[in-house]
Every structure is written in C-alpha cells, then in structure tokens.
C-alpha cells in the first residue's frame, strides 16, 4: 500500500476516535513507518519489551498467552483498520506477558512508543486521542470478557462471525477455537451445526 493511502486510513481511524488539529496530526503522522511481515512471524515475544504501536493495514494477527504446559490461549485478534501490539506492556514499559504474531501475511504502519510518548507530552489532543483509543480497547475487552463468561459457545461463535464475517476464510480454525475457548473437536461440531 502507498504510504499516502496508509496514512489516510490511519487518519480516518484517529478522526473517529478524536479529530486532531492539523499541526498535531502532522506531528503524529511523522512517527509511522511501513512494515510488512509474512505469515506466522512473531512481532513481540513474551518476556521482551513492546517497543511499538502498530496500525494494521492488511492481514490478521493475534495476541496470545503461552502457559507453563505449552498451551496457547488466543486473547485478541487484530485486523485492518485497528491498532495492534501488546498495549499494556507498551504503556507500562514492562516486559510483555504475551506474544503478538501474524496469522496471515500482513502490512502495518508502526510507531516507536518512546516517540509517541514524547509527542503525548507535547500535544494534548494526541494524548487525549490515545487515552480515548485505549478506553475503546478496554471497552472491547470487557465486552469480550462478558461474552466468555456468560454466553454459550454457539452465541460466542455467532458474535465473532458478526464482528468479522470473513475470519473463517482467513484464519485456521484452531485459532478461532482457541479464541472462543472451545476445544477443536467441539469447534468443528459447532461449525457444522451452524452451517445447516
């Protein structure tokens, strides 16, 4: 994707969160660099710092947790247009507890968090935009937590398809099963039941 088109997508996103005055937008836009990644590349590794904020242009990625028994739990999917990365590790400047990985070939814009943090000190509108963006992310997470605790597996699956109708054709089912907290055998039963 051309950098002008990529930045236009980013601006649409920030405008939806909190429109920025021209000068603040210019300063924010200057922080981003294009990055492309192949399928199954680890962008952030557990135990390491999250140095970047990502803006997804293409592809599907996930944040996952790896437990002591080597089991993976898929916590979040990211896809265009949305921000990505391990946000808590980034903002707290602490080692990440999670991995951030591409599940398909992907394209991003990415900004160094230290540069973004500097800009947030200088620009109140940018700081406000980031704060509101984080609140929206928190709101999405709480909504998902409510679904995980209260919905049936079928309702969780329908909700996922409603949010991301193309995900079945893009992502291997094992990651969808892991996201929904269903074992792969029950996931294939579920998808066969819903298809009919």
């Amino acid at each position: 994707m051309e950098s002008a088109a990529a930045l236009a997508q980013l601006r649409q996103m920030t405008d939806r969160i909190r429109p920025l005055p021209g000068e603040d937008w210019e300063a924010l836009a200057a922080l981003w660099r294009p990055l492309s990644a192949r399928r199954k590349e680890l962008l952030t590794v557990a135990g390491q710092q999250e140095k970047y904020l990502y803006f997804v242009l293409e592809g599907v990625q996930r944040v996952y947790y790896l437990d002591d028994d080597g089991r993976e739990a898929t916590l979040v999917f990211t896809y265009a247009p949305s921000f990505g990365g391990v946000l808590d590790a980034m903002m707290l400047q602490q080692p990440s507890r999670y991995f951030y990985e591409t599940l398909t070939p992907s394209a991003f814009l990415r900004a160094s968090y230290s540069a973004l943090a500097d800009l947030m000190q200088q620009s109140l509108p940018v700081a406000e935009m980031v704060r509101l963006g984080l609140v929206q992310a928190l709101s999405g997470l709480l909504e998902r937590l409510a679904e995980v605790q209260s919905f049936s597996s079928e309702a969780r699956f329908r909700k996922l398809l409603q949010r991301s109708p193309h995900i079945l054709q893009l992502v291997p089912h094992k990651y969808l099963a892991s996201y929904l907290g269903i074992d792969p055998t029950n996931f294939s039963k579920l998808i066969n039941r819903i298809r009919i």
Partner: protein
Amino acid sequence: MERKMKTALLHSLERRVEAHLNIVIGAFQNLPPERLLQQAPGGGWSIAQCLEHLNSYGRYYIPRMRQAVNNAPDAEALVFKSSWLGDYFTRLMQPGVHARKMKAPKGHIPPAALDPARVTAEFIAQQEALLLLLRQAEKKDIGKIRIPISISRWIRLKLGDTLGFLVAHNERHLQQAQRVPA
C-alpha cells in the same frame, strides 16, 4: 544440474506453501464433512484422503528436517545444486509435468474413513511448521544437510531437494483434491 540461489529458491518455496495454505484455509477447512469425504469417481481419493496422504509424508519429513536443521551449523552457502536423484524425484511429483497416475507407496495409502476436521487441521499445522523451517533453512547449507527418504532409509536426499520434493508433492495432490467433483 541447475544451480540456484539458495534464498531465491527458499523464498519461492515459501510462496508456494503460502498459496497451499490459502487453498486449505480459504476453502477446504470450511467444507462440510460429507463433502470432504466424498470420493472422486471410479473410487478416486476424497479431499480428506488427498490431505491425509500428504500428512503421512509431513509426519515423516517435518520432524526429521527440523532436527537436522537445528543440529546443523549456520553456513554462508549462497548457491544450491540439486542432486541428480533429488531433481528426478521433484520433477516426478511436479503436477502437469508427469501427469500420469502413480501408486502410493506402502505406509502412505490413506484410509477412506477419516476425521476430516482433524486431517485438515493437521495439514494446516504442518504447512505452518514448513514455513518456519524454510525460514530457518536460509541460515544453513541446504546442500550439505541430508534427509533419508520415507520409503528407503538408504537413500538420503539433500535438504534442498527434500523441501522441493515435499512442496511439489503437496501441489500435486492439492490440485487433485481441487478436482474432486461435488
């Protein structure tokens, strides 16, 4: 035998594996089980059987290749030259080149009764592992590492040929699977 730039060869194999994954993730994994188990006319293999046949090769080769790659020292080899036999096997598998029917060797004949979701998931997991292997191989001498073939432990192919063979073989049977009528 043709000499190829190693990274160009590995990248082109990676692009083909990526294309294979797109077929299976975009189409096969979403088909109903009856469709995946539907046999081709004249007793030909179902889609699930094609994938299980490929899985039987992956189960043999992928762990062996991974171990060999992990044990091999990093190497600055820029070119790869197929062996005569490796080139022959890869050409034999290439779809379209020798389109004649071949008989699957013992140990690689897929049963008709299969769990299609499990078979499809295993194929996807194998291709994801193969992608990582192709990237790791960029740092190694793929002409020096050798892997015994699945049907005779006395014949050992260069890693570059084994990878080329496996990808060509996957392509052959994925095309066969795509031809199975509904």
